[in-house]
């Protein structure tokens, strides 16, 4: 399986601080990857760099095998969608208008929206199950619904890669489950999903694969069990991590203990 998005020896500076120090990462079509790591490990920087929003130092981000620098901006945005933790859109904007702006990379400033665009918007609203909210202004939604509207904008872009930066942080458990179910559904359609997830328990339950970012490097990667039980994870978070097998033993309940 060839990678749709790949980081090779990626170094990124923000201001005077070197945030990423040689990150290697690859995402195949339909793959789901949880990116975890302590605060200030560089997770948000990595996600933004993968979306082509930040200048890279050494190393490269390859989209479909070609460096991002060789792609036109709209072509990147037709393949890579970024969904942030918070929605900053105007409160009065209606959900469907918000989602429709995801079609901007496909149509640009002037070309009128086509049936294809309307179909993509409708599909995105259906996938996130917020079709009934289409006409509602964003300001009238709950935090969870608003996050789903933001995700729907990303889906309306019809991307090959979906990058999410802590998409579930402000959501209650029902909306969290809903969101991750939508992500699994999207992966069924061949979209690669990379999500920064703060809650390790949640990340372990959802993600088929996990990568641990610590001090700008990938310190461990593999299945959630492999990553969380690694030496590197304990070191990175500064806690003891233990997985207790539950139910049929395929899932684990994770315990975190302060080291001392």
């Amino acid at each position, binding site marked *: 399986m060839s990678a749709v998005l790949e980081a090779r020896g990626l170094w990124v500076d923000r201001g005077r601080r070197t945030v990423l120090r040689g990150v290697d990462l690859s995402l195949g079509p339909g793959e789901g990857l949880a990116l975890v790591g302590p605060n200030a490990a560089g997770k948000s920087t990595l996600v*933004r760099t993968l979306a082509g929003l930040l200048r890279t130092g050494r190393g490269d981000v390859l989209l479909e095998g070609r460096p991002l620098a060789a792609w036109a901006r*709209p072509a990147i945005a037709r393949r890579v969608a970024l969904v942030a933790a918070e929605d900053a*859109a105007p409160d009065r*904007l209606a959900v469907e208008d*918000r989602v429709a*702006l995801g079609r901007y990379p496909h149509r640009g*400033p002037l070309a009128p929206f086509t049936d294809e665009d309307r179909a993509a918007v409708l599909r995105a609203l259906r996938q996130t199950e917020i079709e009934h909210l289409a006409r509602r202004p964003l300001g009238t939604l709950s935090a969870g619904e608003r996050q789903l509207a933001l995700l729907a904008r990303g889906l309306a872009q019809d991307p090959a890669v979906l990058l999410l930066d802590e998409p579930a942080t402000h959501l209650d458990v029902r909306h969290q489950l809903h969101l991750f179910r939508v992500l699994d559904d999207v992966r069924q359609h061949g979209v690669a999903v990379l999500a920064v997830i703060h809650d390790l328990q949640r990340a372990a339950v959802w993600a088929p694969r996990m990568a641990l970012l610590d001090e700008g490097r990938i310190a461990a990667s593999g299945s959630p069990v492999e990553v969380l039980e690694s030496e590197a994870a304990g070191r990175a978070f500064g806690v003891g991590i233990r997985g207790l097998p539950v139910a049929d033993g395929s899932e684990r309940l994770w315990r975190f203990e302060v080291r001392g």
Partner: protein
Amino acid sequence: MSERDRRRLVFAAFAAVLPLALLVALSRGSVPLPMGGVLRSALGRVGVAWGSPLPGTGEVILWSVRLPRVLIAALVGGGLAVVGASLQALFRNPLADAGLLGVGPGAALGAVLAVDLGWAHERFLAMPLSACAGALLALLLIYAIAHAGGRPTLSGLLLTGLAVSALAAAGTSVLLVATEEFRVRTILFWLAGGLEGRGYEHLALVAAFVGPGALALLLLARPLDVLSLGEEEAASLSLPVHGVRILVFGLCALVAGPVTAVAGAVPFVGLIAPHALRALVGPPSRRLLPASFLAGAALVVIADVAARSLGQYVELPLGSVTAFVGAPYFLVALRGQEGRG
């Protein structure tokens, strides 16, 4: 009634209010003209004879004095409203306005500089172009200062606008003191603002700038909407954020400069029209911008009628009339805005 029907109704209402306001504005004044006569005269001009037109003097007043003035008022209002709506999307702030952001004082400084240096007497377009430059400078200054620490808060933006306004006004005062006496009159007459004595050459000037400028802003409706999602999301949707902002600033200055050069300061129009309409037609710029143009045009045409008819012997300054209405509106809107955080 569905949302779409309601929006259509809003557009229809403004499309109807504007001609009505124009008709009233054409008939009112120091020499009142009967509305029927104005209509018949207008129909006569387009080749439809219908009843008796106005008496000779009425015809002259209507076509040489009142029509250019009323049309200038419409373009001034429409232009300022489109600029206000665009700046509100760009600064992601429903209370942004050319006047509050110091664009008017910036344009004034530019225009006064042109008079002071004598350019205005030598070259026809020197004053409006210089006003454009002043407006653009004010916008770029505000952008640079207010955006230095990320997205500016509402109070940060307004205070920056206040500072830039004060700076521009100070510059204007210094220039005024330094200007030769025979030019001071020109400047003072102009600074007072209003549309008294404005004729077809002013109309041509305003139309030449407001027309293309406002049209270009309408064409930027979708980029403005993308921009209103925030810098990062806009960039991730492949919008060239910086380029679009500079382009919008340039177009806003292109509209606001000559408008200020011809009509003086007409505050709050750019705030009221889009702010009030956002609740009716929603924030998408493809609807908000044209609706704002119509509403702003009607607003200033009516304000100009008030300026002409409220004072017994003198005309009130147009800017004072819009400020009397606009300032209380702004204060109420500000309270609502701060209440929401």
